[in-house]
């Protein structure tokens, strides 16, 4: 029977090969009943945005442990705007210093989850966020 399911894109942009976190999160979201589109490593911001459009995801999640988060988040957000898709919320996780949080928040990143976050927190955050909209 047809029913509404949350569709989440979990993507790893840039040359960062740390994929454990992304996989852990992807599995946790699946276990929470969501449909997770996992694109694999080394995605460009362009390919992430294109995937989000084709898959019509409810949320985009970026996993970044390379240190290039400021650039990558900004680029994805700019491209979403260019496609008229800035209404798709974007959040993420990985190794992201406290000092960079204000900037990320300012450009529109909804939330960052750092190392050691329990996946339950991530699941309940998504459920809360999507209920509101």
């Amino acid at each position, binding site marked *: *029977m*047809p*029913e*509404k*399911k949350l*569709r989440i894109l979990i993507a790893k942009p840039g040359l960062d090969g740390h994929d454990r976190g992304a996989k852990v999160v*992807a*599995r946790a*979201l*699946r*276990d*929470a*009943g*969501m*449909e*997770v*589109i*996992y*694109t*694999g490593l080394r*995605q*460009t911001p*362009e*390919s992430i945005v*294109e*995937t989000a*459009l*084709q*898959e*019509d995801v409810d949320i985009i999640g970026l996993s970044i442990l390379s240190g290039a988060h400021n650039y990558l988040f900004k680029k994805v957000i700019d491209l979403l705007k260019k*496609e*008229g*898709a800035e209404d798709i919320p974007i959040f993420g996780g990985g190794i992201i210093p406290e000092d960079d949080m204000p900037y990320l928040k300012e450009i529109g990143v909804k939330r960052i989850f750092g190392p050691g976050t329990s996946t339950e927190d991530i699941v309940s955050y998504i459920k809360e966020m999507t209920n509101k909209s």
Partner: protein
Amino acid sequence: MSSFDELIKSMISGDRRALGKIITLMENDSSSSAYIIPRIHNLTGNAHIVGITGPPGSGKSSIVDKLVSCYRKDGLKVGVIAIDPTSPFTGGAILGDRIRMKQHYTDRDVFIRSMATRGNLGGLSEATGNTIKALDAFGKDVIIIETVGAGQVEVDIVKVADTVIVVSVPSMGDSVQTLKAGIMEIGDIFAVNKADIEGVEKCILEIRMMLELSEKKEGWIQPIIKTYGNKDEGANKLYEAIKEHNKYLIESGHNEKKRIIRGKTELVNILQNLFIRNLYKTISEEEMEELAKKIANREKDPYMIIEELIPRLKKFV
């Protein structure tokens, strides 16, 4: 419904996001399909629909990736529907077929949509048929569908595809044995993938023997083609075979027959779903439960109950 009309208009004019949204709407809610399909149906029927099925991990996605490159070289526009199973325990899914198709992610003329089965058996999702129509109306020349990793009963692909490719891999024991009759019968083309590993010739022989035992397809001899999902070699031969099969379908008139059968399947499916939905609108879950109890404690038998229900059901059949 005006927002729907807007979306349909954008989709037809080539807006990829609108197409993505239309697919979601139809996937989530059959009344959306009932609104959308009538408005796009006359734009469909142009694409060649190619199905790829085979056991889990046999290389279906890798082959799709290679085929997409072949089509793109000829300047054709491609839609891909990649289906993965929904977990029966959690209702969630990880849709990962796309990972093998990275080289096409930013090609504007390739549209890849991942879908979960959402409990549908048969190797496809319930919305696959309507998604094919959306991609067709969007102007795709070819639509490739990757089924879930299939064993023997997941043969619904034959109901939606013009050309079915069955992928198998050489392996230690009886490789083809695992494919069993059901799935062998639906193949128009056989791809023996991972042809770089040992046992290819044996696998080909097994398929050939299997085909000799099964019913012939009139006027078409199913080719068996070696493929390599991890290199470009072999993909061209498969591509040529697909084109050859399409030509055969058109020239032999089988295309037309297939379309009529498909139309019938669609009708029956929609009617079935309509009936079930109306059934639950007329008779509540609780009442159904009460009736079931009567059957369970032998107070009544199912036919007796149906006899009593028929007057109430008449208004929608």
